[in-house]
């Protein structure tokens, strides 16, 4: 770790695949003890960035320093102190749940006895103790994800990298994963995660960067980003089948900004109820009206003109 507590420092970091630029010169700093997020849609370059940080993908350009070391030279030493939960689970299908942890520990040179003890604790932590002797295949998606997270913790890492930890999970399974990650955060573990779920980013991240097309388009805490790029409240209007565009013109002047999506119109306003009253005053009758608080989804929409999840 460097003196200022920065665990990961990237300057102009680039990843190219042939001619294609997946990560286009990003600057990032992750400090000890924080939960840091990369928020962005599919193809934004989140996984490419995570794989470079995980020292399994050499950077094509720029600087990258992790735990004060250079990934190009000190890969094994850095990886020894990272825990990685990749986007796609790559658990060992020929081993049991418990063996997946004990075997993985051996790759880090952890003594067998310690490995067994940690496996027991971690299976408890991710609530898989009663499946310890089961094979991996019959586990549900949520269980596999939790096992992968447990595996990432087996070396007591300084930084845990989580690439889309809850993508593809049902709501209940997601909440269980969030709850465990929150517990880790409270224990002071530095978390770096990627997601395209704005609620995930809002719940877990102290600080995040919004990524799009390989670039960082904004940076800050979820609250800061919402304050800077959105209004306090949002009114969502749906106007049945006629198409939203016809009504968009008639809403001019209500609120700071209007976004017209294929299925709804968003009004960015300070006071939602007042705006709704104004809509009705103009004799417009939307099929449905919803007033809600601004989210990171709105920030992303404002910055890129697109929605996060398509």
């Amino acid at each position, binding site marked *: 770790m460097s003196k200022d507590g920065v665990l990961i420092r990237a300057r102009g970091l680039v990843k190219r*695949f042939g001619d294609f630029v997946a990560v286009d010169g990003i600057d990032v700093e992750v400090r000890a003890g924080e939960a840091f997020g990369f928020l962005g849609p599919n193809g934004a370059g989140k996984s490419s960035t995570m794989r470079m940080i*995980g020292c*399994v*993908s*050499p950077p094509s350009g720029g600087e990258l320093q992790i735990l004060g070391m250079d990934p190009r030279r000190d*890969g*094994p*030493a850095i*990886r*020894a102190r*990272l825990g*990685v939960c*990749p986007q*796609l689970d*790559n*658990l*060992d*299908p*020929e*081993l049991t749940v418990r*063996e997946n942890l*004990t*075997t*993985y520990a*051996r*790759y*880090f*040179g952890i003594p067998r006895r310690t490995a067994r003890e940690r496996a027991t604790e971690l299976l408890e932590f991710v609530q898989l103790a009663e499946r310890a002797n089961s094979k991996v295949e019959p586990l549900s998606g949520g269980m596999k994800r939790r096992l992968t997270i447990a*595996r990432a913790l087996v*070396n007591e890492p300084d930084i845990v990298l989580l690439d889309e930890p809850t993508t593809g999970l049902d709501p209940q399974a997601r909440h269980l994963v969030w709850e465990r990650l929150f517990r880790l955060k409270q224990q002071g573990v530095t978390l770096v995660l990627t997601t395209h779920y704005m609620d995930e980013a809002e719940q877990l991240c102290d600080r995040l960067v919004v990524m799009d097309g390989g670039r960082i388009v904004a940076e800050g805490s979820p609250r800061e980003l919402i304050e800077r790029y959105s209004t306090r409240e949002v009114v969502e209007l749906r106007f049945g089948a006629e198409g939203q565009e016809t009504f968009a013109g008639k809403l001019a002047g209500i609120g700071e900004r209007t976004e017209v999506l294929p299925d709804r119109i968003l009004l960015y306003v300070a006071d939602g109820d007042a705006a709704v009253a104004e809509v009705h005053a103009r004799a417009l009758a939307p099929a449905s009206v919803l007033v809600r608080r601004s989210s990171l989804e709105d920030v992303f929409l404002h910055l890129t003109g697109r929605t996060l999840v398509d």
Partner: protein
Amino acid sequence: MVSFVLPRLVGLRGPVRRSVSVAERNVAALRSAYWIVLVSGLFEPMLYLLSIGVGVGALVGDLSLPGGRVVSYAAFVAPAMLAASAMSGALAETTFNFFGKMKYMKLYDGILATPVQPFEIALGELGWAMLRGTLYSAVFLAVMVAMDLTSPSRALLALPAAVLVGFAFGGLGMTISTFMRSWQDFDLLGSVQFTLFLFSGTFVPAEAYPSVLRWVVEASPLYRAVDLIRGITVAGAGVSQLVDVLYLVAVLAFGLVVAGRRMGRLLCK
């Protein structure tokens, strides 16, 4: 001098330890259906020895080797079967199993996120394959001694030779795997392997071929392996066997280095 060498040795401890951990993983996986594959590999060469060596041998009679020695056909074929089984055992582990682990199980993607490096995976997998191959070879050599096809002391000397053969083909197999695109490519490998099996001085002395073909045969890795083991177990060893050993060591070194590099390039994109 000590201060120069010692740090290097210490520097080697990590890689060796990590390679061993990769082999260890296979021990843990052994409890699955995998052991059936292991046992079948044990019997195959013996079936060849009995059917061809003893069965066909009864029709062929004795053979006189280039050195002037006269041996039974079974004694001629047995070392070749040992070399061929060391080859096929090593290739099975380092092509089929290795490819499956790399491409389909994504096993190495998980391992590479730890301090383990591509070359160490290659070394660990190869070491494991050889552990298995050594067991096969030892059993086969014991059978040869029991059938009076070789002497116990020659058999003892032949064991490390068989292990070297396995290592060389294992290194080669791993390199080949990194070039494989799909399971279809393995059909081609199977054909090549069978051709080697038939024409590497296994069933007929290489001297029986026309001279051009003979050169080709003598350059093949299986021929060198057969020549080495036959020299030790029945014919008598000489310069030719020294060439065999150097050839096989070179193949091994080439295989390991190329496989490690290519794995790094394939998996660490």
